[in-house]
């Protein structure tokens, strides 16, 4: 890129999206980090960094973090969110695997249609899919429970697991299974010792695609769950819209971001390790 014409072309093509995202993604993120170290304003929002009247609290503080690490309540709600996300991921995996395997082993001509049939319900509005379970679970007296929350979470995120798993399974070399059979391995052994280990990268990327959005979800616990079923997302929403304590909400959002980055990092690491064996 030493040639000035090429550098100019690069700026013309890459510059506008970069600047847009700098303004409307990176900058808001940085403001949120800063907000987590500030005091809440008198009428919501943020207190000024420099004292204006002297009466209200201003400047920087680690108070929000002190509250977070000082009270078990917040630790427990994060733990609960991780638990719900883990259970949802596991249930999605158990349900998605047979479907992905079936599609991958179907004749090529049928695969596109079978994939499309997975995507189509996914195209309906997220709230509509949650609402559908209100109609089903309401008359059964199962609404507003942890069970309803898990059902909704699994239903909404299932395609996120099926698609990456299928993309992985489709690439497997079928002769490996024949070789396994020739060497006397039964169907289960062929699955556990050949197909399953080879599909680990697909499992990890699918799991990340389910786990991460579930972790930040607030609408499903709010619509299908009771007050005990609130997760991190609900706490964040409350902080911004009800109690209007932005600094506290920003601190919670930052903690969620750190959790998400950690999960994504772990998934990426495992996926890469998995590929090495594949």
């Amino acid at each position, binding site marked *: 890129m030493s040639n000035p*014409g090429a550098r100019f072309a*690069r700026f013309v*093509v*890459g510059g*506008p*999206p*970069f600047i*847009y995202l*700098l303004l*409307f993604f*990176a*900058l*808001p993120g940085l*403001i*949120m980090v800063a*907000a987590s170290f500030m005091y809440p304003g008198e009428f919501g929002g943020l207190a000024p960094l420099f004292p204006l009247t002297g009466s209200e609290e201003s400047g920087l503080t680690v108070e929000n973090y002190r509250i977070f690490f000082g009270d078990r309540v917040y630790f427990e709600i994060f733990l609960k969110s991780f638990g719900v996300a883990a259970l949802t991921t596991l249930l999605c995996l158990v*349900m*998605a695997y*047979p*479907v992905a395997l*079936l599609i991958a*082993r179907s004749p090529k001509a049928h695969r*596109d249609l079978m*994939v*499309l*049939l*997975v995507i*189509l*319900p996914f*195209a*309906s*509005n*997220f*709230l*509509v*899919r*949650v*609402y*559908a379970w209100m*109609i*089903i679970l309401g*008359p059964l007296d199962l609404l507003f429970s942890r069970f309803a929350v898990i059902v909704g979470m699994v*239903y909404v995120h*299932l395609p996120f697991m099926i*698609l990456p798993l299928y*993309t992985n399974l489709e690439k497997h070399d079928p002769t490996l299974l024949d070789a396994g059979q020739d060497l006397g391995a039964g*169907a289960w052994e062929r699955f556990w010792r050949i197909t399953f280990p080879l599909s680990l990268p697909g499992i990890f990327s699918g799991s990340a695609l389910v786990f*991460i*959005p579930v972790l*930040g979800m*607030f609408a499903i616990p*709010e*619509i299908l769950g009771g007050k005990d079923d609130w997760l991190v*997302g609900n706490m964040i929403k409350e902080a*911004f819209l009800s109690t209007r304590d*932005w600094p506290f909400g*920003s601190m919670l*959002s930052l903690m*969620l*971001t750190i959790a998400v980055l950690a999960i994504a990092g772990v998934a990426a690491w495992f996926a890469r390790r998995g590929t090495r064996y594949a």
Partner: protein
Amino acid sequence: MRRSWWLWGVSLAVYALLYVPLAIVVVFSFNDSKLNAEWVGFTLSWYRMLFNDQEMLRAAANSLLIAVISSVAATVLGTMAGIAMHRYRPKLLPFMVLTPVAMPEILLGVSLLIFFISVFGQESLSLLTVVLAHTTFCIGFVAIVVRARLAGMDDGIFEAARDLGATPWQTFRRVTLPLIMPGVIAGALMAFTLSIDDFVITFFTSGVGVKTLPLQIYSMIKIAVTPEVNAISTLLMLLTLGMILIAGKLAPDAMHGKG
């Protein structure tokens, strides 16, 4: 063959699970009863009610306007980002483009809420802020599709165009753009669908005055559930169904999550 028997069985059950809840919503949208409990008789009155509901119509108009503007903006910026990522292999751009796609929506929603209010003031939340927010997360989806399309092509074509004396703009206009067009259109349709369906980010960036269809559905299912919700849900399903089918026809690769 015993194994493929149960593979079929479980898969059929999962497919049924995917469709039955939505089918129930659709069926009850034609039910002549206020309750989504048992079938009473066929009616179109919920649809009639829907088309006389001024608030709902205004929400639909808002949703459409937001989706059109933000999908156009995201398609232009996302196509540029996709081309830049493919051709120049920048380090920071992919991070900026892909992170908003990968992280929980609530994080983008609340950070934009703080940003808009603290920079532009309490009254700034409006249609415009929703459009800006939607564009932010749609850019990534368009960029992914466009980059996948470019990755499947022979870069020699572009060199050939240059060797034949085409300026960079001519190369783009007459070679690159026609070739990536199916990806661009698929990306645009995807952005439109994502925008018109978005709830979480709209929820945080719209303020009090602006209602969109998903926000309207949200307040309806939280306050009073009537089959009018089923009717709007059914119409919304038809709309996104159409968009997805068109996108799948135009860019089959994009539907496989390849790239």
